[in-house]
């Protein structure tokens, strides 16, 4: 069985805008089934990366391959669905007209999108027949965003590039989008998710790539990111806290008030659990690490 071509591969991808460096030597591989979070502060190079991957701008140096094909090859882009961050639709058309137009922009000889798939997407995102019949210029921002999402998704692409997909959407619709993303991932689709909303990235992505000033800062799985984070644990013992034993177990004491302690934990938990087993505990709180802290730390770190 021949190997599945890598959905996205960039080699030394570089883009200069005159004297300004938009992206500098990005080497990136996005594997099939991944949901990759593309993160970074404004001007980090996220949009430049996406526009290079879609052949909307041309690299100063380096190359992009989509499914093993040069990005300029329409056969490569036939497998891609794209939702831009600043979505602009043809507002003279109706929602249905826009979806038909986007479906019509397919390679010659390619069958149209499955109408049942479009209907299912409309239903899950809460778009009614009346919404689709209305001119886009009369639609709310949220409705336009839903139309943009369906336009990207209706042909069931192997690679979805979603730039801030939940902008302007209510929490219920956001949930529906997360579900769709998980389903797509489970079905072997690949998703390139650019977002500023870290809680969304935390929920949806399997790996994150962080850019800053056009350069790659880090590329790590969400699990690695969590594992590397210091966590805090608050414990209230029945008697006085066994401070010496807790410190000996490799924790850092942040607060201490008689029987109550707050600990900072960076390593393995085995030794700490041994101490806790020997001393009766009345209450214990051990929240999930906050990824916001991790990202703040990464944003501040020097580029690779």
């Amino acid at each position: 069985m021949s190997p599945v071509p890598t959905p996205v591969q960039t080699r030394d991808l570089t883009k200069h805008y005159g004297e300004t460096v938009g992206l500098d030597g990005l080497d990136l591989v996005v594997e099939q089934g991944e949901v990759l979070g593309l993160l970074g502060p404004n001007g980090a190079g996220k949009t430049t990366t996406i526009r290079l991957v879609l052949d909307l701008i041309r690299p100063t140096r380096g190359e992009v391959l989509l499914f093993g094909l040069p990005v300029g090859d329409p056969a490569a882009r036939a497998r891609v669905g794209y939702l831009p961050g600043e979505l602009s639709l043809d507002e003279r058309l109706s929602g249905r007209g826009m979806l038909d137009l986007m479906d019509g922009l397919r390679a010659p000889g390619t069958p149209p999108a499955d109408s049942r798939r479009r209907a299912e997407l409309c239903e899950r995102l809460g778009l009614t027949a009346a919404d689709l019949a209305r001119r886009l210029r009369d639609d709310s921002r949220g409705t336009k965003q839903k139309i943009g999402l369906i336009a990207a998704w209706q042909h069931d692409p192997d690679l979805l590039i979603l730039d801030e997909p939940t902008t302007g959407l209510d929490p219920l619709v956001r949930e529906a989008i997360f579900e769709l993303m998980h389903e797509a991932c489970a079905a072997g689709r690949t998703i390139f998710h650019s977002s500023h909303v870290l809680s969304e990235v935390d929920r949806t992505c399997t790996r994150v790539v962080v850019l800053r000033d056009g350069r790659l800062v880090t590329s790590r799985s969400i699990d690695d990111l969590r594992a590397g984070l210091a966590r805090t644990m608050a414990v209230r013992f029945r008697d006085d806290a066994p401070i010496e034993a807790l410190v000996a177990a490799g924790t850092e004491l942040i607060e201490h008030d008689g029987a109550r302690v707050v600990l900072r934990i960076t390593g393995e938990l085995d030794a700490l659990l041994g101490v806790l087993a020997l001393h009766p505990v009345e209450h214990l709180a051990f929240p999930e690490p906050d990824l916001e802290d991790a990202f703040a730390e990464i944003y501040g770190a020097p580029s690779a």
Partner: protein
Amino acid sequence: MNAALIRRQLRHVAPVTAAIALGLLAFEILIAHIIVAFDEGPGLQGVLDMLPEFLRDFAGGQIANVSVPGLLAFGFQHPGVLFLSVAWVVFAASGPAGDRDEGTLDLFLARPVTRGRYLASTLVLVVGGCLLLAGMALVGLLVGTSMVEMPEPVDQAGLVDAALSFGALLLGVTGIVLLLAVTSRRRGTAVARAAAVLVPTFLIESFAPMSAPLSSIRWISPFHYGRPALGGVLVTGEPGSPWVLVALFATTTAAAFWAFRRRDL
């Protein structure tokens, strides 16, 4: 080219195209009636003789020996006809700049449509519109001359030649505007650049008969090559050269495709 893109563009330009095409049809029908009305009055030359000298010079630049075929040919050269037709071409051919301006171009070209196919869709639409406008003007003249008894026989083959010259002029303008559209980020910029090229060159060609300096540079104007020669009535004795316009169209269109393929969007 792509059928979905052509349908979309057609939907956007159809109302204004239909209005201009019908306006041209009506105007050309009217021309035949006006010629007959003048012929029954002071005579065509008599009307021209009544004009002040500078206006006579100006009008003489358009029509030399006032005659029925000359005035019929003028139906393609009337400033109103030229303005409306060229304005339509500028509107339709600046579509790529409009899509870029609105942000829809990114969305379209992220789909498996090459830039060449996208631009070809615009080109097909605009060329079709140019042929429609020239065709409607021709039909108007043929219908108009068949409705009234003309003072002298009408050379119908000459009318067809005149319509082809008119169509060639619109094609030449199409190439220029398309090139400006793919190198502009905004539709307004593309339109302003087109106006900056077309208005001065139109004025040069219009006033060239009254000015030796303008006459020496009239060759730079596309309007110089689109003058119909019907019955040998042109004042300068130089009939239009539609092939120059066809060459201009081919060159500027090829340059537009080349530039659009290379540029960042």
